[in-house]
């Protein structure tokens, strides 16, 4: 059974159709790539899946459960993590604190005022581990706003991981990052994909074709192709979209 | 009997609408300053007060009320431009910070007026004598004049914004400052201009209201909350919304005054406004932002 199942999702903004009958079925352990030109509806699809937007029609299932239209915090609790194309970090929290907050949300009574922030060892160990995984251990006491853009992207991933998701949605994790930093991030994604299901939006078609097990192509709000990287690179329509214009 | 009630209600309605127009005039400036500059201007009511105080001074010195309609806008403009440039500029775009900064300005303005003008409320004579019979009440002509002039001013502001090049620049800045500056608009002068225009509108409201209310150094406190309500209810940055909201507020309060105790009417209007905002959190005419 698919761990993430999107069935005939449609999203209209006023008269504009951003998504039309989009279906997507991601198996457990898969690294799925989603590509498509600007305005194809990739981020909108993520927003619908993660609860940021309510779809006009269609259903989303996560681990077999209907999560359509739930608010983001509930979807997060069901095991979905995501990052954002334009980084959304907490400017005045440190790297460590940002990750800590995410881990805390999975604890029992995350609001309990009589639990101490510093002394919760299983949370802090996990937070340090995540700092290491994304390579920010040395910078764990920096404020998020002081990080380089690439580091912020890494922090984004760490924060998404902190809630221990079953499925991770990555929205253009290498966009706007220096080639060297991008290389590090790609390595990280490959490493992560060994342990969890990932859906990746990428602008760079090469990266997606190189990394992903399976690729979905969106154009003007519709799925126009789906298949293995080889199939996709041979697909005429995809070639037309990417080369024709 | 029924016609008596009807004529009473009509009277309250019309009277409320006329007050609504003055509020609209003041609130318009507030809406501008917020829309273009992101300043929550807590001192806006005090500019209204300053307009009235200046009108009183000009009348005492020159014996002519109408001159103040010419002099006050210039004087307030001369005061407002440097205030924006030198004092408020660094805070712009941070609503909470501007709120405190302008609250500080408000303290300063009120105390300066108390020091120079004194704490006694004073009255200006009606510049227009005469009244006409309106549903059994000798309705002062001057009030109609205020209503008419307010309408004219509001209309010309609208025409300015929609029909002149500079007005379009101002509206562009209201939509998006960065894009506006990328388009080569001198945002700097637009900001100064907007602030001055907003302040002048408030001050003109003060001049017009001076003969109908009384000139007092705390008179701004009475209108400021009302103006904020009108601006928010009307929808931020929506000119028409501000006007309609002010008229609705004036009209509804006027009508309720017939049925309820005055405090009750006020409280009911406020409760009504809370209801409006819960049902339409973007205001009556605002578009969803963000």
């Amino acid at each position, binding site marked *: 059974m698919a761990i993430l199942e999107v069935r005939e999702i449609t999203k209209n903004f006023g008269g504009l159709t951003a998504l039309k009958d989009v279906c997507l079925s991601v198996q457990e352990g898969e690294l799925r790539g989603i590509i498509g030109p600007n305005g194809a509806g990739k981020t909108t699809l993520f927003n619908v899946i993660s609860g940021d937007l309510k779809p006009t029609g269609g259903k989303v299932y996560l681990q077999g459960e209907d999560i359509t239209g739930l608010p983001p915090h509930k979807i997060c609790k069901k095991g979905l993590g995501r990052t954002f194309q334009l980084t959304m970090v907490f400017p005045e929290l440190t790297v460590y604190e940002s990750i800590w907050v995410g881990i805390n949300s999975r604890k029992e009574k995350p609001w309990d005022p009589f639990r101490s922030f510093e002394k919760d060892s299983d949370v802090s160990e996990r937070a340090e581990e995540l700092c290491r995984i994304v390579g920010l251990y040395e910078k764990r006491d920096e404020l998020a706003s002081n990080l380089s853009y690439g580091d912020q992207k890494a922090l984004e991933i760490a924060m998404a991981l902190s809630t221990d998701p079953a499925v991770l949605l990555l929205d253009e994790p290498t966009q706007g990052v220096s080639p060297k930093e991008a290389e590090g991030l790609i390595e990280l994604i490959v490493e992560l994909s060994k342990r969890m299901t990932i859906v990746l939006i990428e602008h760079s078609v090469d990266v997606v074709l190189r990394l992903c097990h399976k690729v979905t192509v969106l154009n003007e709000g519709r799925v126009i192709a789906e298949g293995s990287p080889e199939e996709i690179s041979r697909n005429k329509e995809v070639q037309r979209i990417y080369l024709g214009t | 009997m029924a016609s008596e009630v009807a004529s009473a209600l009509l009277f309250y309605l019309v009277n409320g609408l006329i007050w609504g127009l003055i509020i609209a005039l003041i609130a318009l400036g507030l809406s501008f300053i917020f829309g273009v500059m992101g300043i929550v201007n807590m001192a806006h009511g005090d500019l209204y007060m300053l307009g009235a105080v200046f009108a009183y001074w000009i009348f005492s010195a020159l014996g002519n009320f109408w001159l103040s309609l010419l002099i006050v806008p210039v004087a307030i403009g001369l005061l407002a431009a440097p205030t924006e440039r030198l004092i408020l500029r660094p805070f712009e775009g941070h609503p909470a910070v501007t709120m405190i900064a302008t609250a500080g300005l408000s303290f300063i303005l009120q105390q300066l007026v*108390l020091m120079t003008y*004194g*704490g006694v409320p004073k*009255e200006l004579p009606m510049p227009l004598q005469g009244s006409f019979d309106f549903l059994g009440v000798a*309705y*002062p002509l001057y009030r109609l004049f205020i209503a008419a002039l307010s309408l004219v001013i509001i209309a010309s502001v609208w025409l300015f914004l929609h029909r002149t090049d500079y007005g379009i620049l101002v509206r562009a800045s209201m939509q998006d400052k960065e894009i506006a500056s990328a388009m080569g608009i001198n945002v700097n002068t637009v900001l100064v201009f907007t602030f001055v225009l907003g302040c002048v509108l408030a001050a003109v409201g003060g001049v017009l209201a001076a003969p109908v209310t*009384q000139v007092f150094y705390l*008179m701004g406190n009475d209108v400021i909350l009302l103006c904020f309500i009108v601006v928010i209810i009307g929808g931020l940055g929506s000119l028409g919304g501000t006007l309609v909201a002010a008229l609705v507020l004036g009209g509804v309060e006027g009508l309720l005054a017939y049925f309820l105790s*005055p405090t009750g009417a006020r409280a009911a209007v406020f409760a009504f406004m809370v209801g409006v905002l819960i049902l339409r959190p973007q205001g009556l005419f605002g578009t969803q932002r963000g």
Partner: protein
Amino acid sequence: MKRVIRGLLVVGLAVFMVSGWAIAKEPIKIGMLADKTGGLAAYGYSHEKVLKAAVKKINEEGGIVGRPVRLYVEDTESKPSVGALKFRKLVETHGVDFVIDSNSSGIAIACAPVAKELKTPYFPSAGATEISGEKGNRYVFQPCTNVREECKGAASFAVKNIAKKWVTVVVNYAWGWSNEKEFKKYVEQKGGKVLKSIRVPLGTSDWLPYLRKIPREAEAVYFANFGSDFLSFIRDLYAVRPDIKKLGAVYVLSAQDPAKLGPAGEGLYCITSYPTRLEGLNTEYNRKYRSLIGVDPEGLEIGIGKRFVLAYDWAVWESMFLIKAAIERSGWRSRKDTSKVIEALEGMKFKESVEFPQGSGYIRAEDHLAIVDLYIEQIVGGKLKVAARIPAAKGAYPPIVDRTKESF
């Protein structure tokens, strides 16, 4: 720079601490709660000037039992909460022995329990009946007239000389309401009738909607409002009912120039406890009093030419001399004699003089209220003329409480 600011903070703290200590022994210290800023700023200004003149007079004449008087003035900002804090400051920091003034009933009522707690006699010049009723205590005196006294005193004049069918229009807060209640009660006792009671929120600029509710058959209106509300009221009343007769509560005219009210104000009656123009009470004492406080026979401030708020000024002035007389009679030396001074004040009679320019009268022992004459003024030809003088006995109502039975 940062160090400088830190230093300043430390110095500031030090000043903050030390300033409380400097308490000299010699002079008799009088505290004043003046409403210098806020809604009542106009009253605060005149009251402060009058009390300073009174202190100056006493000191020039050798003080009280040979001791000089020192005045400490604090601003209440016209807010009860600030007033109560400043009352404490006057007593606790400046060590004053007596506290005079605040024109606001709210402030007076907020300070009354503080006065009792700090065992300091307090003389607010505010008109709420409660001050000499359930909200006062043995330390609180009401040296001015109060609303009940004023309404009772004016009632028979109102019915006999003005009209039978009344409407009341008052500002919508405690002072207005007690005027509404008391006027109705006493006018109806005298055979008049109040047809309708209208309340208008404080600070209303547009009174037309409210005034439109005045019934056609009403002949006269009794109103309680002041300052900006009064101006709006008069103007809008003229628009609605130019013919109606008007009687205002004490205070309504305060610093207004009756001539400027024009035809809207002509013929208006007004209760007052002190005639605005010298002509109304042209005594040798009053001439002297006016010259000492710097006010000319027309009620203008000498040298400035502006209208001076005279309303309860006399009560502020007389409070000072009540204290002086009580100290002299009771042999008060320091705070520990305070109960003696209060006992001396209870029932104290005073004779018309420069010290008591408003006229003879007495402090009623039971409720600490000043029982004095009242006046009805009328605007005639743009000038205020006294239409009637009402003897103190007419306004005196049976006391509500008996303070003499309270312990100190």
